[in-house]
Each structure stands twice: as structure tokens, then as C-alpha cells.
């Protein structure tokens, strides 16, 4: 259970600075009543969530929010966030909850519009911590240009949760003319691009885990990617696959694409950007950076004649400065991902099995 007040973006806001009449100050920690549907619940919503996320749809506080949606196909996505610790170098569960769902929408070529947020809070969580997470969510939503238009709060008994879980559901719109973008669209001859260095998020989080705690300058790459995606979208069908390599890392993402599209993928290991600090931490822990999670990177499979154009567009974007063409799609060996090593040999890149398990020595 996080105990101390955590700084918000730019040093605030914190619990002490909250405006509004004072009822929340009577409860420095979340109590069961905050999820009970009565006065305490209402105070939490009115004095914390609504001021932070404020927009006309939410302010109405109806059972459902009414929103306008432009023409096109609706994209929907939902994701649960259970990170520990709640705040880590470069981000928090708040930014993750916004950017994670925004990115899931962006990977289908959608423009993200609205989010809903569900909070499962463990009794005893410091109000100041909840306030910080909510403030960071609000800042991330504003930065991404999406509105948080509905939400839900449940409080579970102490010992029945891990401080705070957040679930976000996102709504976006895909322009009608955009050809399908998805994991099954890769074709032989396509090029595989990566928008930047891998492993930063996973290593940043591990560096502050209670049982690990090693010093590193690595910060999470947590970011909303729809801008990065938007600058390469065309209606000519040359963008086949967009994926953000989150849990399971680059290895899982490439294997998913190879399986879904029934193609082989060959990567040149030397072209995959990995920061030296991340590689060092992975060496130390016996982890493979290709298996480590990212929260602000995009893998794109594009037609060969679009690769240079996409690369140039990405490199001109702040989130894609280190973008690289890392490999190509082949007809042979469907479902298999291979990599050429720096020694000139070739090996299979397996799908990671599950939990990252550091080696013993």
C-alpha cells in the first residue's frame, strides 16, 4: 500500500491543495463508504473525479454520457491496469490507463475520442495518492486530446486488492475510406519498422520494484501514439499492421503478427534500437530486452515502397526520432520469427511463455 503523498505533474496538485468544501479531508484514506453509493461516494465523484476530468458529458452525471461521434467506423477497446508501484520513473498508473487505451485505438488507425474509467480501490489507499493518479490521468487525457466522459468507483476491503486497479475503455473513429489495418494484413515483401528503442518501460518499472530497486536513469516511454500513427496513415493500403509491443515485448508482437498473417518475419538484430542502460540492466537480470514491455513504441508492417516514407515521417516526429527499419516479411516459414545475429548467424525468436523470469546466474 502506497503511504506517502506523491507529487503530481509539475509538483501538484496534492491533497492539501484541493479546492471544494472539505469533506474529503475528513478521510485521508479511502474507506469502504467511498464505494458504497452514498454521500461519501458522491463527494469523491464531485470533488475529485469531476473537477479533474471536467467536460460537459461527465459534468451531467447521468447514468450514461451522451457524446457526439463523427462519421466513420467506431473503434472500441478496453484494458485493465495493475502496475506496481503506482508511480514509477517517467509515469504512473494514471498515464498508463489513458495512453494504453488510446494506443490500442490508434493501432487500428482510429482517432481516439472518449474514454471511460473504472477504479477498483483498496480500502486504506491514501487520498493524496488517488488524487495524484487522477490528476495525472487528467493531464494525460488532455495531452492526448481525449475526454474521460464516464466512470465507476468500487472500494474493496483492505487485503482484497493491490492499492488501485484502473480499467479504461476507449472509443475512437476510423475514417470510412481507410483500408483495414490489423495483425493479419502483413504480406511477403513488406518491411517491418520500429518507432524507437525497446525495453525502457519494463526496466523503468523493475528499477523501482520493492524486490529489485537498482539505480538507473531509464524512464518509461509511456506516451500516446495516435500522433505518431496519424502522420503515416494513408488510404492507399500500404500500412498493413500497427501494433504497440506492450506485455511480451517486441518478441511477442512479432510472433503475433507472423502467426496472424501466416508469414515469416526476419529481423536484423543489429538494427533493433536498445539503449545501453536497458541492455545492461537486462544482462544483469538475465532478461531478454525483446521480451520486456514498452508503453510508447509502435511496430509497423508496411509495403516495401512505403518504408522510406514512413521512416522519414517517424524520424521527424518527437516520438519516433530513433525509428528504424528492422526487418522484412517473408513467404517461407509461416508463423516463425527469426533474427540475424551480429555474428551473422540466424536464430528463432520464440514467443515468450508468460511471466518474465530472471535467470539464476
Amino acid at each position, binding site marked *: 500500500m502506497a503511504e506517502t503523498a506523491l507529487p503530481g505533474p509539475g509538483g501538484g496538485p496534492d491533497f492539501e491543495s484541493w479546492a471544494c468544501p472539505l469533506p474529503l479531508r475528513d478521510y485521508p484514506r479511502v474507506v469502504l463508504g467511498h464505494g458504497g453509493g452514498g454521500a461519501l461516494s458522491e463527494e469523491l465523484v464531485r470533488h475529485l473525479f469531476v473537477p479533474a476530468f471536467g467536460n460537459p458529458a461527465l459534468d451531467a452525471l447521468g447514468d450514461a454520457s451522451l457524446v457526439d461521434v463523427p462519421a466513420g467506423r467506431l473503434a472500441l477497446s478496453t484494458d485493465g491496469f495493475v502496475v506496481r508501484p503506482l508511480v514509477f520513473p517517467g509515469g504512473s498508473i494514471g498515464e498508463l490507463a489513458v495512453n494504453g487505451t488510446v494506443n490500442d485505438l490508434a493501432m487500428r488507425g482510429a482517432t481516439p475520442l472518449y474514454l471511460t474509467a473504472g477504479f477498483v480501490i483498496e480500502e486504506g489507499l491514501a487520498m493524496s495518492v488517488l488524487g495524484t493518479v487522477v490528476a495525472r490521468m487528467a493531464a494525460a487525457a488532455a495531452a492526448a486530446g481525449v475526454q474521460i466522459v464516464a466512470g465507476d468507483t468500487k472500494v474493496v476491503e483492505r487485503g482484497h486488492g493491490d492499492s488501485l486497479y484502473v480499467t479504461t475503455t476507449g472509443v475512437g473513429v476510423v475514417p470510412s475510406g481507410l483500408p483495414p489495418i490489423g495483425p493479419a494484413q502483413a504480406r511477403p515483401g513488406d518491411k517491418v519498422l520500429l518507432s524507437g528503442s525497446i525495453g525502457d518501460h519494463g526496466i523503468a518499472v523493475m528499477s523501482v520494484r520493492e*524486490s529489485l530497486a537498482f539505480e538507473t536513469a531509464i524512464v518509461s516511454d509511456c506516451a500516446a501514439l495516435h500522433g505518431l500513427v496519424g502522420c503515416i496513415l494513408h488510404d492507399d493500403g500500404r500500412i498493413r499492421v500497427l501494433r504497440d509491443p506492450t506485455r511480451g515485448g517486441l518478441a511477442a508482437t512479432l510472433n503475433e503478427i507472423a502467426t496472424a498473417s501466416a508469414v515469416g518475419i526476419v529481423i536484423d538484430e543489429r538494427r533493433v534500437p536498445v539503449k545501453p542502460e536497458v*541492455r545492461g540492466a537486462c544482462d544483469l537480470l538475465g532478461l531478454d530486452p525483446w521480451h520486456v514491455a514498452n508503453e510508447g513504441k509502435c511496430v509497423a508492417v508496411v509495403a516495401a515502397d512505403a518504408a522510406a516514407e514512413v521512416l522519414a515521417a517517424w524520424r521527424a516526429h518527437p516520438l519516433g526520432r530513433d525509428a528504424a527499419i528492422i526487418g522484412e516479411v517473408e513467404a517461407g516459414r509461416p508463423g516463425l520469427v527469426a533474427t540475424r*545475429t*551480429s*555474428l*551473422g548467424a540466424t*536464430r528463432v525468436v520464440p514467443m515468450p511463455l508468460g511471466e518474465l523470469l530472471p535467470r*539464476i546466474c
Partner: protein
Amino acid sequence: MRYLDEFRDGDLARRLADDITRIVTRPWAIMEVCGGQTHAIIRNGIDQILPPEIELIHGPGCPVCVTPLEVIDQAIAIAARPGVIFCSFGDMLRVPGSSRDLFQVKSEGGDVRVVYSPLDAVRLAQAHPEREVVFFAIGFETTAPANAMAVHVARQHGVRNFSMLVSHVLVPPAIAAIMTAPRNRVQAFLAAGHVCAVMGLRGYPALAERFHVPIVVTGFEPLDVLEGIRRAVRQLEAGEARVENAYARVVTDEGNTAAQRMLAEVFEVSDRAWRGIGTIPGSGWRLADAYREFDAAIRFDVGGIRTAESPLCRSGEVLQGALKPNECPAFGTTCTPRTPLGATMVSGEGACAAYYHYGRFRAAAPTA
């Protein structure tokens, strides 16, 4: 990090491989003892750039692979007890016991935790005096000093609710066992650099002389491994059998004497069972009499647990170089990383998992 990059340089690696091709005149079978070296070989494809005369045999140096099934079952029995916090390094959690693994024990309510240092387990014991904290102490000479230190610290601070399930193994007796095995094919060894960093070269010259076998102390980066192979081939071609230190930037003749003193205080040499191989005399460590009160097997009375390996699993032959993983009838069929019969398929450093994942077999080799 530049220091590491220099030992991963592809051009230099190919030059070393060319050098080995120039000096080799006939087939040689060289065993890399350590799982870390196996990992480097497979991950970088070192075997693919060597001349066909060089056969690399993966040795028994993966601590996860050689921990006996019955010790895993003992660990599972202890971890399942109410009031116990069972601490382990990560890769032991998925090793199957007779009927389940530690992950399953955790899902059933056991308090199983991954730690990165045995001292973290001691700290947990201090923080939870009402619980019994048990650390799963496995591994070679590399991990043993820190484990010895943990017991020492626990006693020093009067931490009575801490104990260790010990299954430590030693490399030199394993080398002797491999050389005396009836089907032995190993003609040279790449000794494990990290083991020698602790123990020095103690015991190795006698082995090289007794079995007339070259032993090259080798590191874990691609250039380290290739240099180890090059020196081993040179000796083989010249009919020599010496101990060479190709990892001098880490290993000294005498090793880490402070660590050795700690080991000598806390542990004593014992006979030890190796999974798939059997008992090798004098090949392990157990807690010395003065520290026996910290022995979890005694404290939880699990020493009597006896279990039998799957008759289908031939990992013992794999660990001794007598059988290649893909020559095992169960390989890739009844035995996969998702449904492993033996530990060599579980551990990322296990020879069977390495073959399975990284495609040392023709069927999965990519065309590129």
C-alpha cells in the same frame, strides 16, 4: 557499456571463427560446462559460424536443470505450508515437480516470492517474525557465497525464522564424472568463468592431468566463448592438456578468497544427487554442523520425500553429452517448454529448451 560491446563485435567474432577453421584438422567434441555459455552460444548463433569439425556439447552447468526432482518436491511441500514465505530465484518457479510447480503452489495460496538476493529473504524474515521464511539455495559455486553469507548474517542477527533448502553442486567433481562415464565423448572443456572467479583454478590442473583433457576457463560474451574454443582447439591439435585462463579479466588463480572463507565456514562438502545424472561423490555442499539449525529440510521434515523421474525423460544423457536434445523421442512432442518432462526443457539455459527455441534443428531453421 562500451566494455561489453567490444566482446560482442561481429567482425572480430568471425575473424576468431576463421582462425579456428584454419587450425582445425579433424573433428573435436568440446563441452561448455556452464548454462550461461550455452545461452551465449545459442543466442548469438556461435555454433553456426564454427567449422563443422567442432561439435559443442552442452554440459550440466545449468543449476535449474540439475536440481533433483525430489528437492523440487521438497520445496513444493514446504512452500505449500501455511505460515511459510518461500523465496526463490525466478527460474525455479516453473520447474515441474512430480505433480505441480511452485507457480501452482502460489496460485493455490502458498506465499511464494521471487527474490534477487538471499539477503532479501533474510530481511523478509526480520520483517515477518511470525512467519517462517525459507530460501531455496540452489546453484553452483557462483551463487553459494551469497547464500552462505545469508545464513551467516541470519545467525549473527538472531533471525531464527529463516532457513534454507540447500542443493548446491560443484563443477570439478562433475567434470570427473563426465570423463569417467562409459559413453563419454568430451575431449575438452570450457570451464565456467564465474565459478572460477569464486574458486580460482583450484582442482582443475589435477583434472586436466588425470584425464589428459584441455580445460579452458571461459567467459560468457561471444568473443569470450570463441576465444575459449580457439584455445581448446589449439591444445587438442597439439596433443596438449593444460588449464588455460581465457577469462583473466575476471578470474585469478586463487579466486575470491573472502568468498571461499565464507563458504568454508557455512558449508561442508557432501555427496549430491544431480537431476538426470545421479549421485556424484563429493559434488555438493550442505550446511555445516554449526549451521544445521538453518536447514529447511530438517526443520520441515521433508528429507524423506522420494520421487522418480519420468521414464520418458532422457535429460541425464543430454546433460552428459551422450544424447542431443533432438535425438530424444519425446523432444518437441510430449516434451516442450509448455509441457516439460525434465528441467533441461524448462530452464532458458537448458539444452533442450535452447534447441527448441532457437532452432538448432533443421526443421525450424529459417531460410534467411
